[in-house]
């Protein structure tokens, strides 16, 4: 879990770079970056929930 916290900051530069490829001013770059960051964070959380669900359901089937 703590290792995951070390990996999460890597999302910030990825989001900023994605934002800067879409916008041309500081304000819009950071707004786009924040939107990308939240989208990625949401996707990761959903993926973790889905994985946990699969890990709980599959053993029940067999």
């Amino acid at each position, binding site marked *: 879990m*703590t*290792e995951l916290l*070390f*990996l999460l*900051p*890597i999302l*910030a*530069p*990825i989001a*900023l*770079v994605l*934002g*800067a*490829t*879409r*916008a*041309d*001013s*500081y304000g*819009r*770059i950071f707004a786009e970056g924040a939107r990308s960051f939240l989208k990625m964070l949401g996707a990761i959380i959903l993926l973790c929930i889905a994985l946990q669900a699969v890990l709980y359901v599959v053993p029940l089937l067999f």
Partner: protein
Amino acid sequence: MTGKRPAPAPVLLAGWLVPGGGHFLLRRKPQAVVFFLAVTLTYLAGMALADFGNVSLERHSYYFLAHIFNGGETLLAWLFTQGVLEDHVPTHFGIHTGEIGILFTAVASLLNLIVMMDAYGIAAGLKPGPEAPEESATAEVPAP
């Protein structure tokens, strides 16, 4: 943007040498600054997490294939950290951070590839640039 647009090859080379260098040549200063800070700080953070022993062709040859895309910083890191011996496991806050550091530097270098391609696309006229959609959105619609 006013003035003559630089040729794609120097823009690509500038982006390879310095993250955001291509955008600087294209006079897109905010983008150049953000790209430089995002890539360089991630790269440095990765090196610090791995105790400055992760940019090495001998020790991490596969990751070095990713580092190649961040040419200038990788060259500097390789020159200045050649003598660093990886005789211990890098540990910060009780966690082995060596692999995490390698991942950080590799991701920063691959991000620079995206940055280089973005600058090349703008210089070659393949990408309209961020201001173009706004211009088209605010363009007057001719009366029927």
